[in-house]
């Protein structure tokens, strides 16, 4: 329960900074990998909805993409090893899929700098999140 509240708190803290780095996607990815599939899907939907409300472009679009991606990642989660490199590769695929879906359906611009910055900062943020929620730097 404490962890769930922590995720919500971080979600609200991260929202204003999401325009520079897609830190919400990193948080969602972290939640999907570490929490139950039901909570992951609900949390992803809620995070997407918050993004839709905070940066209004098309209501429900982010919520839907995040729900689909969370559901999809929940399927393959059990085959993943929590090591830095595989996680980075999976996140990159997850994130690029999200960007592509947004680009195709919302026809928004692709901000290359934001994508690169998100991928570069993924591992440090992921490690810090591990430390915050599980008191370890890496859960392998």
């Amino acid at each position: 329960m404490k962890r769930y509240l922590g995720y919500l708190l971080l979600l609200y803290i991260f929202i204003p900074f999401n325009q520079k780095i897609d830190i919400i996607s990193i948080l969602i990815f972290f939640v999907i990998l570490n929490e139950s599939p039901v909570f992951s899907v609900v949390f992803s939907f809620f995070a997407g909805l918050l993004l839709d409300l905070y940066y209004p472009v098309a209501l429900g679009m982010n919520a839907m993409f995040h729900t689909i991606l969370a559901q999809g990642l929940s399927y393959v989660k059990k085959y993943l090893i929590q090591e830095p490199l595989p996680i980075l590769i999976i996140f990159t695929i997850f994130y690029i899929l999200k960007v592509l879906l947004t680009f195709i359906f919302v026809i928004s611009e692709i901000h290359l700098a934001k994508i690169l910055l998100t991928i570069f900062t993924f591992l440090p943020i992921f490690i810090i999140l591990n430390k915050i929620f599980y008191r370890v730097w890496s859960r392998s």
Partner: protein
Amino acid sequence: MSRIQLFIFFVLFSTSLTFIISGEKVDFFISKNLSQIFLFPHRCISSYFHYLQVSQQHIEELEKTVAELQLTNEELKSHLNIAEDSILIPNLKLMKANIIGRDPMNFNGFLYIDKGERDNVYINQPVVIGHRLVGKVKSVSSNMSLVETFEKPGFAISGMDEKTRVYGIVKNNGNLKFNYVKIDDEINIGDTIITSGLSEIFPKGIMLGSVKEIEIADDHLFKEVIIKPFVQINQISYVYLIFTKKDTLPELIEKRPGIPEKLKELKMVIPALRK
């Protein structure tokens, strides 16, 4: 994969799909209401930060106003001092004069003021600020005058300790010193030295400075008293001239003991002689 998970996924998926396919008006309505609920914490925090920002600006403006008011207050206080002085030193007429120049060779020793003969300024007229001594008028031209301040080396004036009534001569020999104070005379650090009124130039009671240091002179007869002046000559922009020459000659004669009676006698005798 459990059925619950699939059920939740389809519910959430359909909800988001409903949001997407709903019309603009419905979208606006939903966004507005959902924002009020879900972005409430964020709105509270951002409004708090906005409040802090506005408050900061307000504080800066108030600080500026306070600084301005403090300056005005200081100015008014200095004027109030002058008003009080004129009560403390009765029967003295004061005239304000602005400092328009300083002697480049002796920056604090001489001041040029914007009042001259036209304003009835005269040589040796006492110059003060508040009830503190500045100096005396050295020379006068038609519309400006030169003031010799106590910071000019060699400036001397008769003074006394306000508390112990010890008399002496205040002289500037680089430092402002209260000379001719006997070794037995009582004088303490922090005492105020005022004009004694023995000089014809300065009226009694104008403050010169406070006693800063007391040492025994080499001759062991007198004390060497160093005074810290009350006025910083390099910080003033205006002064006040004291008019002590208010009495006319006949009035002065009449005030001298014995003379009025003799005058009356003469006034009676002269017409008789003329006849």
